[in-house]
């Protein structure tokens, strides 16, 4: 690992952010945090993270909107997006993937699986 990869956690619930932050830092990533959709977009533009852990249900802008905006912007489209959601329906998963999310995980998820997916998306072999 030459340079640590940057990860943005976009979720409005501090109770999950605390775990995700600890987990990602522990994996050696450079972690930043956004509490709502607009902040997420702003941080994606300013920090250009390699991967975003994106919650669907967020204030101001939903995860779907953020995903669509990022994937629609050629400058940002390389950003990997892993959507995390409490919506368990197939239709919503299909929507997330259709809007360009690279992966989609339904809450509750196993943290180990999450770490594996993050590695996989960043092309790192754990």
């Amino acid at each position, binding site marked *: 690992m030459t340079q640590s990869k940057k990860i943005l956690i976009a979720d409005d619930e501090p109770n999950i952010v605390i775990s995700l932050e600890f987990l990602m830092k*522990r994996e050696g990533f450079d972690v930043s945090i956004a509490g709502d959709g607009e902040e997420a977009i702003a941080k994606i533009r300013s920090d250009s993270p390699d991967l975003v852990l994106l919650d669907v249900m967020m204030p101001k802008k939903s995860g779907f909107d953020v995903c669509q905006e990022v994937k629609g912007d050629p400058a940002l489209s390389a950003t990997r997006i892993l959507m995390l959601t409490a919506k368990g329906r197939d239709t919503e998963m299909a929507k997330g993937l259709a809007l360009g999310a690279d992966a989609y995980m339904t809450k509750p998820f196993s943290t180990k699986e999450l770490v594996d997916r993050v590695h996989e998306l960043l092309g790192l072999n754990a």
Partner: protein
Amino acid sequence: MSPKNRLLVSVALVCAWLLIVVGVCGWVVWVDLSPDEREALVPIISPRGALLGAMLVMAMAVSAIVLRDLHRRYVAVPARLAEDGRTLLKAEPTRRLTADGNAETCAFVDIINALADQRQSLQDDVEVRVADARRSVEEEKNRLGALMSELTQSVVVCNLDGRILLYNNRARLQFRAMSDAPGAAGGGELIGLGRSIYAVMDRHLIAHALENIQHRLRKSAAQPVTNFVTTTRAGQLLRVQMAPVLGVAPEDGADRPVSGFILMLDNITRTIENEARRDEILHTLTEGNRASLANVRAAAEMLDFPDLDDELRTRFRGVIRDEVKAMSDRLDHSASAFADSLKARWQLEDMLGADLVAAAQRRIESRLSLRTKIEEVDEALWVKVDSFSLLQAVTYLASRLSDEFEIRELRFRLVSAGRLVHLDLIWSGQAMSTETVMNWELEPMRFAGENSPLTVRDVIERHDGEMWLEREKVKHRAFFRLVLPSATPQEEVTSDVYLKGDSRPEYYDFDLFSWSERNHEHDDQLLSELAYTVFDTETTGLNPSQGDEIIQIGATRILNGKLLQGDGFEQLVDPKRSLPPESTKIHGISPEMLVGQPDITKVLPALHAFAADTVLVAHNAAFDMRFLQLKEEVTGMKFDHPVLDTLLLSAIIHPNQDSHRLEAIAERFGVTVIGRHTAMGDAIVTAEVFLKMIPLLAEKGVRTLGEAREAAQKTYYARLKY
């Protein structure tokens, strides 16, 4: 030429004749005289010219008086008798002419009256026979009516125009629930004979459903019915089943044409609401908890890492505590808020508690030969039960008691306990252990030849109920208490539906089937075939433009020449102003009666809907219409219906009568006046009078709506302004 003009012309002619006779006589005498005689005569005559003139005028006056008397005897009296006679002939066969005028006329009147008597007795005879013949038809109709009113489903039958021909009481109640009109009109403006079903349902939807049915009929489907769900204007959800009404098969052996349709309606708004709530619970319990679970799981998994410092460890534990508490709260909230929706998965029926106990008694006595008795039964209680399985459970418990404890009698008690009902099975004798009872509860019910896979517990759970054993030590008795859900008493057929008349309400009119062929251009329609709304208003005074307001509206409907007794609109109206005490003397409405009544902006839309697609009829309609029209702006309701005025129509029929007041007309037509000066009372009198007028108008060549309007405009009274 009117009789009055004829009199004037006759007098003028007689006067002219007198002048001519006197003039000619004078001239002949003058010509015959010799010049001497003329000279002698002039001095005698000329001073007396005035006297001669006066005598001539007197002769004229005497002739005029004689003529007037003759006119009265030989023209005016016969003219009035002719009008009365026409009424007798066309409208009021019990009416008799009053003898008047000279002896010959009187004799003539007597003969006419004798003929009328004769006709009356013949007619009575015919009517008896017709009534006999009609009775059997009526019986069949009544049988159908009774069947319809017993149905627990709403049924509405319409012709192809969407006009309602028949409906049952359940439908009426359902439409009333859907109506947003106030008070007495509620529902009446939506359902009624001859009203359009399209007021409640989308026209295209019905057309589409009819098409489906036609299609199925062509394919000779066994059941040419179709189902759909629709929303009403008031936002209610209706599940509708539609079936065709088939007409008579044509001669050439082709298929029977569809002449109308039957709609069976279910209001499923409540069901859908329940389902929606159930969905909501599922949602909060699944999706709502996913996020929390994710937080807990992640935090718990973090705790496994050995390299965690104490502060983080405390924070993760905090997360777990918070989230678990949040999930518990959510669960509690769902469980209490949606408790009602979670129940009643089983099809439970409402049953009168006393009926349930009676059924249990019969069953136990016949199956088990065990004596039963009623200790206490609340007759007013309704329970929500699956009666078959519950009776099975009760009988099963009784059989175990009888077999294993040899009880000799089982008593029933049914009492209310808040929203629940206690059904107790009481016996006296030795005590049993609670464990024994638990076993009975959990074993499949097998007794007296019945073999059910269900246990008593299953049955109790099915009712969302409970069951336990209790002992009354003092009395050496014990009882099983079954706790069951209570039901709200089933709506009885509300009495006010029948209040309007002592006969059965007119819920059907099959004559409407033939409407579709008729011309819909109102002006060319025959008066006898139109639908009418006959109405009257009571007001604070006579000057709407100076602030007088409507305080009561009464309206009734006429359809196919019949007054619909059960189909009325009666509503008091808050005038939003003071009520002059002198007006109270006329209509008997006091200010207290108007407190809390809807105002005109609420009532006129309901009246408008009630009068949809009909011709308005009122006595002195100009007065009432003025009140309605002045409110057009406030209510947005334009009363642009065709209007007929019985006052003007009376003037067309009876130009020689002195009075065209409603009482006078009613008296002429033999209409009994009851409750005058209530809006509804006057509306009904007006309607009955109007029905009598239709044949008399036809006599005068006034047959269609257009002709009636034209004739009314010509009469003198039409020029009165209000």
